[in-house]
């Protein structure tokens, strides 16, 4: 069984290698190869899952060492996999959603002549992501971490002929790099503290390390998570990442890669549990981001960017939950999985809409699409209900638990976090309702595209609708299934641990409150967008709206706070380099050159002059000898 773990990673890796090295002769069937290998990975995952269920609760973790990677003295790093319940959850999510999105992409990318390459990148992403979640040590996790970053970069910039896509890819890569530095520092700190970076010894020996060091490691891990999961302050890349093809947005920037930060924090739970300051930082980041993303999502007219804001916000929930400690880990992962379903479904729905509307992304130019795209409408609608937390659907179960856990943190902190989570829920309801109303309700606001073609909305082909339906089913039932009998809690508890906080509010009160804010949010959105016609061009809006349209000035902030000083510093350094460093170097060279020019005159080529020098030198030697004797 252990050997199958390696195959999980190997299958998509083989696909990537085949598709990227295979050349044009695979153009016709490349997408099938990619999809089949992704599906194969999912089947292997399912087999391993079934096998894992068959074992006792405490010996479910599998371990498989493939080869010794860096054996240098006391420094040992192995390529070894660890498959426990947490990894299993991710494996199923990644391969499952991944396979569905592969299938979807067959239809979505049908007219793109670089489809083979696209599938190669997708497979590369799957392999890297699986490596990330299956690694048994931080160093191998880092390899996967960088691998998904690379795949993300390649896929955001897939339409590299568009300058905006190329820029967005670079932006994502560079911002991620800041986070990656955090991860590498964290790994180095781990090595100096524990002498190893394998999960098991690090996480069990946390007690032996000082709290200061653990806090440092925790903060560095948080920095890494912020980069990968688009959390404040490293959130700026996610909105621009929507330049990539929509399946990419669904798979990488909604369902899987951006949740790697949550995985990292959950996996390193033991470290955070022992470092309360780091945990505080985590919940702060989570709470700020969930509001930040939600506000941004309210103002965007670009359907994908609105969804991206939503993703940011939902991951904020997960980070918040993960920062709560043992009371939140399970719910963070549960929300992660349900979010994977409904957000991927929403993105695929958005892709389907764009596909029908000649790649128009402005929601103000949609309207009344429910009549033309019934399947998309229904699946999108189910995803919508799931994300706003409609009772009984997936989002309801997972988000409710997080809000409950936030209150259960206790004290003022609990009230603040719970309040933020509740407020977030209200805003989520508002902006998702807005998206729904603008897209599928109201009257037609279509405009001809640049080529003058009137859009003719139509339902997408079945290769696109079937994945959407499957994901919609997941959006509806996953949460309920997980909560039935607390099955998900029991499944993950051996890995992450779980404790019940003492909530000042009863579960029923929290649920009631959530329902109330949900209704308020929906009602507000309906009053604004449902009751009266929507203008095609966005009104000027309030100061907050305008700021939110500019992603709450995050790019401006980065520009003023980081780019400008960086440029000035660089210019200063260049000036110093030119004037001082080069001056010293050139001055020395000029001095030596000038001196040589003068000394060169001694070399006049006349043997007799040299003879005189020799003569004088001999005289000096004799004098020296005599002097030495005299002394």
């Amino acid at each position, binding site marked *: 069984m252990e050997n199958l773990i390696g195959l999980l990673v190997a299958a998509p890796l083989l696909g990537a290698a085949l598709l990227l090295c295979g050349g044009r002769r695979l153009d016709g069937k490349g997408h099938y190869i990619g999809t089949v290998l992704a599906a194969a990975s999912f089947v292997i995952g399912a087999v391993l899952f079934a096998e894992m269920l068959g074992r006792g609760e405490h010996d479910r973790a599998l371990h498989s060492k493939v080869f010794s990677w860096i054996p240098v003295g006391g420094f040992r790093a192995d390529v070894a996999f660890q498959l426990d319940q947490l990894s299993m959850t991710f494996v199923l999510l990644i391969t499952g959603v991944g396979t569905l999105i592969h299938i979807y992409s067959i239809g979505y990318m049908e007219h793109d002549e670089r489809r083979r390459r696209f599938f190669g990148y997708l497979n590369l992403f799957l392999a890297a992501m699986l490596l990330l979640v299956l690694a048994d040590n931080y160093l191998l996790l880092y390899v996967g971490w960088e691998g998904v970053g690379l795949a993300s970069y390649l896929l955001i910039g897939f339409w590299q002929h568009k300058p905006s896509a190329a820029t967005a890819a670079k932006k994502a890569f560079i911002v991620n790099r800041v986070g990656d530095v955090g991860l590498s520092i964290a790994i180095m700190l781990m090595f100096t503290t524990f002498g190893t970076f394998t999960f098991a010894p690090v996480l069990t020996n946390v007690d032996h390390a000082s709290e200061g060091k653990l806090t440092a490691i925790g903060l560095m891990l948080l920095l890494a998570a912020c980069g990968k999961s688009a959390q404040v302050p490293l959130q700026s890349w996610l909105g621009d990442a929507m330049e990539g093809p929509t399946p990419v947005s669904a798979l990488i920037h909604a369902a899987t890669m951006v949740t790697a930060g949550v995985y990292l924090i959950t996996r390193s739970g033991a470290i955070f549990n022992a470092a309360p300051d780091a945990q505080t930082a985590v919940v702060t980041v989570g709470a700020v981001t969930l509001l930040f993303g939600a506000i941004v999502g309210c103002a965007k007219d670009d359907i994908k960017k609105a969804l991206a804001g939503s993703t940011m916000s939902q991951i904020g929930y997960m980070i918040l939950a993960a920062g709560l400690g043992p009371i939140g880990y399970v719910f963070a992962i549960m929300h992660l999985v349900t979010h994977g379903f409904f957000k991927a479904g929403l993105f695929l729905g958005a892709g389907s809409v764009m596909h029908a509307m000649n790649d128009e992304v402005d929601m103000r130019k949609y309207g009344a699409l429910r009549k033309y795209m019934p399947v998309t409408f229904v699946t999108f609608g189910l995803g919508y209900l799931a994300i706003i937390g409609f009772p009984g659907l997936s989002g309801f179960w997972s988000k409710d638990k997080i809000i409950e856990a936030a209150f259960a943190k206790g004290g003022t902190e609990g009230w603040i976090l719970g309040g933020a989570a509740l407020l977030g829920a209200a805003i989520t309801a508002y902006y998702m309702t807005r998206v729904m109303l603008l897209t599928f309700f109201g009257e037609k606001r279509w405009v001809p595209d640049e080529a003058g073609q009137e859009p003719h909305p139509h339902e997408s082909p079945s290769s696109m609708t079937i994945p959407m339906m499957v994901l919609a089913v997941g959006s509806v039932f996953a949460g309920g299934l997980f909560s039935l009998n607390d099955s998900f809690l029991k499944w993950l508890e051996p890995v992450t641990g779980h404790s019940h906080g003492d909530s000042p509010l009863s579960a029923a009160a929290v649920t009631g409150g959530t329902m109330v804010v949900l209704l308020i949010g929906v009602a507000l959105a309906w009053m604004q967008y449902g009751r009266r016609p929507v203008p095609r061009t966005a009104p000027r809006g309030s100061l907050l709206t305008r700021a939110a349209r500019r992603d709450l000035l995050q790019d401006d902030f980065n520009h003023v706070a980081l780019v400008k000083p960086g440029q000035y510093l660089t210019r200063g350094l260049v000036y110093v380099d030119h004037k001082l460093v080069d001056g010293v170097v050139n001055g020395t060279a000029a001095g030596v050159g000038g001196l040589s020019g003068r000394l060169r005159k001694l070399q006049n080529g*006349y043997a007799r002059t040299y003879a*005189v020098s020799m*003569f004088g030198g*001999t005289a000096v030697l004799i004098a020296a*000898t005599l002097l030495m004797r005299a002394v």
Partner: protein
Amino acid sequence: MSGTLAAAASTTSTGEALQFWVLGTVAVIGALCTILMHKAVHSALCLAGTMIVLAVFYLANGAYFLGVVQIVVYTGAIMMLFLFVVMLVGVTAADSLKETLKGQRWLAALCGLGFGILLCAGIGNASLTTWNGLGQANAGGNVEGLAALIFTKYVFAFEITGALLITAAVGAMVLTHRERTERARTQREQSEARVRTGRNVPPLPAPGVYARHNAVDIPGLLPDGTPSELTVNATLRGRGQIRDVSTDALAELAALEQRSQRWLGRKARDTGKKAEDTAEPEHGENGENGENGQNGENTAGANSRGAAK
């Protein structure tokens, strides 16, 4: 020389002292002449003189073998080799002693003075008042003593110097040897080739100006009075040792005019004493010319005499 026979002496015989001071002076004068003579031949001869003096000193110091070798090998062979090369390179070329390098003289003088003083200071510092002399070492004969040392203690050095000499001889041959790459043409072939090309069919014109100069380095004059280089041996042409005398006659005539003017002028100042007699001073002038021993001058004198007649 009696000093050398003493086992441990503190002074040499008076005879040797006298010899040293006299011959030492000669040696120093010879050395100075070596470096100060304009012509290389003179330098070589002065050096030979110094070497002979040194040979005497070797003998005085009990180095009988070396004294003889110094005369036979150094003075006899090496210095003659020098003379050969001097003759080969051109014995007429006198060196200018004018210094062309700026400051070279001063530096040389400074270094030489400093060097000499320091060397003498060193000797004075380490000088001995008593010495052993070679009486014992030379007891079995100087040559035998040297031979015993050369063929025992210094045998390897001796062998190596032998190899060095052979190498030097081969090296000298390699340096000066010029390979003949083709067979030398016979006289017949040369004349045939001349006829074939049509250039210089008769023998080359002879050097020298008819009735005035017949030296090989003086080119013959063409009908228009310009010198023809063809008449001079190619080797001399190559060395640039052609003497052009085409303008000599006129220049000498002019010089003669000047001299007679000067003499006449002097004569004019002495009018009161002597009657005019041109023949006598002219003879005296000619006599001076003859004493100068220069061929051209002599000829010029003859010319002027001819002109006067």
